[in-house]
């Protein structure tokens, strides 16, 4: 039994790694196409039909580029930093149920690597560890732009973890469990049971925080090309830079899953329709990341801080207090 569980887990890990690495690649393709259509242009068109093989071309390019370690950097930390970003993003995926459980060849599969009872806490924690990627990479780069980017990254991540942490506190008080499976089952009764409707404030706060945590427009400050060139990634090239990229896109997917499961009912009752509904919701959230990028300018770092500490955090606290009172009486 133990061996079977081990084999099953390893298979799941491999599948998730492969699927989401590929999805990160497709993510860039979607992003370029979606942005292109919103911006009255075509996007990638030359490599393969509709530019579909562009991802392969990009991948080959990144993998075969020379691995440049510039003079003056701290080599060990410089090399490790991108791995941290990518690794923590995938490790966070361990506690996310990607689909409802299904039966294949008479064997019941739970598409979750580890149903741990602190699921959401683990996911949030792991994403928070991802901060070490930009932090160490920026500090080890021996570049002033990277340094500023690191300072921004730390400030942004810490602020927004406060908001996202406080925002999910209220729904968790209602559910009474940290497991994402339990959270999903709590909303299994249909659309009216979605936490987004009972906790709209928490939903929107978490959504805003998700933009900051993934560093997407309008909170695209950490690697803001107009100000900081590529921020912590300025000195990186080739696949090391690519790892940062994969980490960022994987994070976008995983946080979309978390939002869909936490607030929009996840896969509901576990039917096939529910499974597709979950994927649809994830696709919507992912699309929304791209949509805002096409529509909005970026805020300034100090405006972001103002927003967190003076607006979002007080709102989150008030939301928790009110939820507490409602639950008590």
């Amino acid at each position, binding site marked *: 039994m133990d061996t079977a569980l081990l084999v099953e887990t390893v298979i799941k890990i491999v599948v998730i790694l492969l699927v989401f690495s590929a999805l990160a690649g497709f993510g860039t393709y979607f992003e370029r196409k979606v*942005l292109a259509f*919103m*911006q*009255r*242009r075509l996007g990638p068109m030359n490599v393969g039909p509709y530019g579909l093989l562009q991802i392969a071309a990009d991948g080959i390019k990144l993998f075969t580029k020379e691995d440049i370690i510039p003079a003056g950097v701290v080599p060990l930390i410089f090399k490790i930093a991108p791995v941290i970003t990518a690794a923590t993003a995938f490790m966070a995926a361990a506690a996310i149920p990607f689909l409802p459980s299904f039966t294949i060849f008479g064997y019941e599969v739970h598409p979750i690597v580890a149903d741990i009872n602190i699921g959401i806490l683990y996911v949030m924690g792991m994403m928070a560890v991802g901060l070490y990627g930009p932090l160490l990479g920026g500090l080890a780069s021996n570049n*002033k*732009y990277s*340094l*500023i980017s690191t*300072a*921004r990254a730390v400030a942004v991540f810490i602020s927004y973890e406060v908001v996202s942490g406080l925002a999910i506190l209220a729904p968790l008080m209602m559910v009474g469990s940290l497991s994402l499976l339990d959270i999903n089952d709590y909303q299994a009764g249909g659309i009216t049971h979605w936490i987004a409707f009972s906790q709209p404030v928490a939903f929107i706060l978490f959504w805003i925080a998700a933009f900051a945590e993934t560093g997407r*427009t*309008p909170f*695209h400050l950490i690697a*803001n*090309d*107009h*100000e900081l*060139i590529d921020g912590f990634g300025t000195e990186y090239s080739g696949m090391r830079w690519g790892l940062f990229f994969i980490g960022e896109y994987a994070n976008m997917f995983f946080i979309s899953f978390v939002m869909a499961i936490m607030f929009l009912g996840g896969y509901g009752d576990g039917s096939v329709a529910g499974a597709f509904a979950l994927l649809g919701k994830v696709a919507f959230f992912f699309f929304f990341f791209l949509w805002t*990028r*096409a*529509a*909005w*300018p*970026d*805020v*300034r*770092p*100090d*405006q972001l801080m103002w927003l967190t500490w003076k607006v979002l955090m007080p709102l989150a606290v008030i939301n928790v207090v009110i939820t507490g009172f409602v639950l008590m009486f």
Partner: protein
Amino acid sequence: MPNIFTPLLARISPLKQTLSEDDLSIEVDAKNLFNNIEFAASAGFDYLVDITAVDYLSYPKTPVARYAMVYILRSTDFKSLLTIKSFIINEEVESITQLFKAANWLEREVYDQYGIKFTNHPNLKRVLNHHEFVGHPLRKDYIITNGQHCSIAESLMDEMDVQLEKHNLKDEEHMFLNLGPSHPASHGTIRTLVALDGERIKAAVTEIGYLHRGFEKSAEHHTYSQVIPYTDRLNYCSAVMNNVGYVKTLEEMLGVHVPKRAEQIRVMLMELSRIMDHLVFLAAQLVDMGALTNYWYLYNPREDVYNFLSKLSGARLTNSYMRIGGMSHDLYDGYEEDLQTIITNVQKGCADALALIKHNRIFHDRAKDVGIISAKDALSYGWSGPNLRACGVNSDMRYLKPYYGYDELDFDVVLGSHGDVYDRIMVRFEEIEQSIKIVKQIQATLIDGEINIADRSIILPQKKEVYTSIEGVMNQFKLTFEGIKVKPQEYYGSIEAVNGELGFYVVSDGSGTPYKMKVRAPSFLHIAALPEIIQEYQLADAVITLASLNIIAGEMDR
């Protein structure tokens, strides 16, 4: 004589004076130069247009001294021009930086190019040429082919230390960061060294000259007509505008007037250039804020203008379409249709971009109250064009001193009120609207007729004549090899270009090549103010402030 000159002449008593329409040129003694300029500034000529020098070493008529300083001032209402000239003996003259902030960089340029020293100047060092450069290129004894190899960049800490001391800051408490010369936000090659406290800029120093190609020296070695392609490269976002500015100055020197149709076509192309340039500005500005989509909404219609220009002149970017006394050829058949496409698409692009940002809170928070400059400072820095109008000063020469029939056209001068980034953006959006209005009016009233003047000493003969008659061949030969002869004079002519007042100060010696040419480039005067206006703002603000000045390195560095 306009009344404004009466008190001036009563007090100054110049050595020589020439008056034409609203403009007065005087020559004064070098001893009283500073006092005279100070008095002129207090008597209503409080806008410094340009400072330059002339080296008379190889001038046909030897004057009293080798060098003369030339100061060009404008009256408060922008309508009268005062040129003060003074021969200097010992290559030294008193700085007027305490009267005009613009004088700082303009005097540095004179020092750089001519080696004339300015006493009491706060920071007399080179500005366009490299600091390792030996000699002064615009001196007549500097041989044009004498190239020099300069390689080591300046640390700029000499200027930065002065700034730090001025603001009572300590060297070790700040991080020094080079924004440029190669940085995504530097829009060309501009270097700004900033002292950062966190992300706040405490002091800044700007260095330019990375694109300096010696336009003025080159002009002295080409015939008047050969200079036209060089003018394309001044503000390369609106090449035709520079063409017109140059040929208009030359035509005024020659005393000729182009036919009405040529004037109309010029106005039409100038306004199209204005639209094109503003579209580039707005696209780049909004991208610097992260608003990516606007870039294509605004750049796609610009492509239509480029297609129009390439159909018309054969070149997309550097058109060289204008000629002294007219233009290379008439509009093509069916241009009206293309013009209609341009107007429709530009209006649609602007409307779409505005729809994205007009009521966007993030945009407002980013652009408002950022990079503010007061109208007083802007005037003192010699700002002009949309940047000055954003401060609420009406400086539009098209309205104040109309040329080419601008007075018969119906358009509004767009003014801001606050002088911040937001105003500079919105003024340009509205100016595009006004330019479209002008283009439509021109199209409706365009008359038939000649586009060139009939003077064979200025305009090349028809190719048919050249191939069939000896007179034609000789005419072509003389004009091409000897150039158009301009009788000896010193003249400053200007137009309202996209970025502001684009002026050409030309000294002619009767031959076919200019003896001296100085371009009054609006961007040069705009960038000089940058270090002061980004101070105490965030790094992110500095990036959008630089973008909002629409610095075009081609005309700034010349």
